[in-house]
């Protein structure tokens, strides 16, 4: 416990650049792309997701000895969906404008990879306090990245900041940046910038990309030059070691590593989790 307490501060700060969920771990891409058209919506999304993340991490960490390993994913999803419903009701009641601009992306926080990823990759193995700090750090990192991206897109794409016109009609905004293609483009550029600042490429196997990659082209991601890497003959996937999380810093916290040989693909073998702790 003592050791964990000493490490609380890095838990809080790692979410900003080193392990920024949006830019480094590439989790939660859908809301990032969809909501970053205006600064106010981005802040609303960031804060809502942070609140859900904080409470889900705390609750799941507190229940980590109660929830059986085999049904942990359904249990996590239920907890998260419940929290999302609460946040949704609060937002609807107190900031209806944000509710309108977030639309269906507000309930979709339920399936945001960041939250399930942190639940399964961090909260179920750490104390309540450490999980809370981790959640705040990750949530703030997510909000900061979302805010930055929305600022770029709104200022350049609409010539405004948080709805306030900036250029007084002297500049024609680049409207394409507000449209979907601009979302992909700005996001790509921001990840490239983060790579440049960090001096190394972002982890290729990350978050929900990793679990999807697991399903088919994990081999390919790892060795892009292998031309005919048959996804079904991937030795990685059939061994339980494929699920091992090397450490908490691993972004591969995706809980949905598929295992074609097991009946319940949702639940990777429990032994892998144990192996992780050892």
């Amino acid at each position, binding site marked *: 416990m003592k050791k964990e307490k000493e490490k609380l501060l890095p838990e809080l700060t790692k979410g900003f650049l080193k392990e920024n969920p949006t830019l480094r771990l*590439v989790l939660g*891409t*859908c809301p990032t*792309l*969809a909501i970053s058209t205006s600064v106010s919506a981005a802040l609303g999304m960031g804060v809502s997701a942070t609140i859900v993340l904080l409470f889900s991490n705390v609750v799941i960490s507190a229940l980590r000895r109660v929830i059986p390993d085999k049904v942990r994913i*359904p249990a996590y*999803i*239920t907890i998260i*969906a*419940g929290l*999302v*419903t609460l946040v*949704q*009701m609060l937002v609807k009641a107190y900031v209806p404008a944000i509710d309108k601009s977030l*639309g*269906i992306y507000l*309930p*979709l926080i*339920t*399936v*945001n*990879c960041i939250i399930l990823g942190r639940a399964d990759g961090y909260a179920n193995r750490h104390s309540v306090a450490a999980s809370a700090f981790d959640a705040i750090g990750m949530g703030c990192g997510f909000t900061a990245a979302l805010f930055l991206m929305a600022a770029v897109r709104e200022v350049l794409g609409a010539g405004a900041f948080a709805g306030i016109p900036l250029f007084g009609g002297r500049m024609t905004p680049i409207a*394409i940046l507000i*449209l*979907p*293609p*601009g*979302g*992909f483009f700005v*996001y*790509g*550029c921001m*990840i*490239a*910038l983060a*790579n*440049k600042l960090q001096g190394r*490429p*972002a982890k*290729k196997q990350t978050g*929900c*990309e*990793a*679990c*999807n*990659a697991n*399903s*088919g*082209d994990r081999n*390919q991601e790892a060795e*892009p030059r292998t031309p005919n890497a048959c*996804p*079904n003959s991937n030795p990685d996937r059939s061994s339980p070691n494929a699920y091992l999380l090397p450490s908490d810093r691993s972004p591969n916290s995706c809980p*949905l590593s*598929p295992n*074609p040989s097991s*009946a*319940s*693909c*949702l639940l990777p073998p429990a032994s892998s989790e144990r192996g992780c702790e050892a």
Partner: protein
Amino acid sequence: MKEWISIFFAAILTGNFVLAKFLGICPFLGVSKKVNTAVGMSVAVIFVMALATAVTYPVNVLLERRDMAYLQTIVFILVIAALVQFVETVLKRFLKPLYQALGIYLPLITTNCAVLGVVLLNVQNRYGFVSSMVNSIGAGVGFLLAMVIFAGVRDRMEQSSIPKAFNGLPATLVAASIVSLSFLGFGGVIEKIFG
């Protein structure tokens, strides 16, 4: 009938789930490296989307009648998770070939925001049963289209030289931006033809 056709094509082209609505980005970026895996994933998505819509529609009617619409999110995600598990078990038991084709993609679909997204959109737009089904199948087909096109684009991209910082994901995103740009060209087409 006209309305259904218009919903169907709008879901494929102008309101493409991946490229216009940003739903299901993870599989779009993760599984689109090879055309055959992209097709496998997309077919599984179409299947689950249609099934999820068929199941959640009566559930939602029930919820609304009891004045419990606020439970939608939690009920829908549980229904989808249970459904995916159920489909997987049934396929494994009775339709081995189909299971082998779709099996590995099914578990990933539970947390695919496109599935929950289509169900929520149907509710939000107050679609009837047929419109809901048409919308979700259209969304699935649009997903397939985007995945296949993008798999082709990525294939070409593998062989090009890219600035170091852009290597990997950033370059993929910029490519996605250009593919998305091409779908932008369909804006207004559906309204002009069917509206």
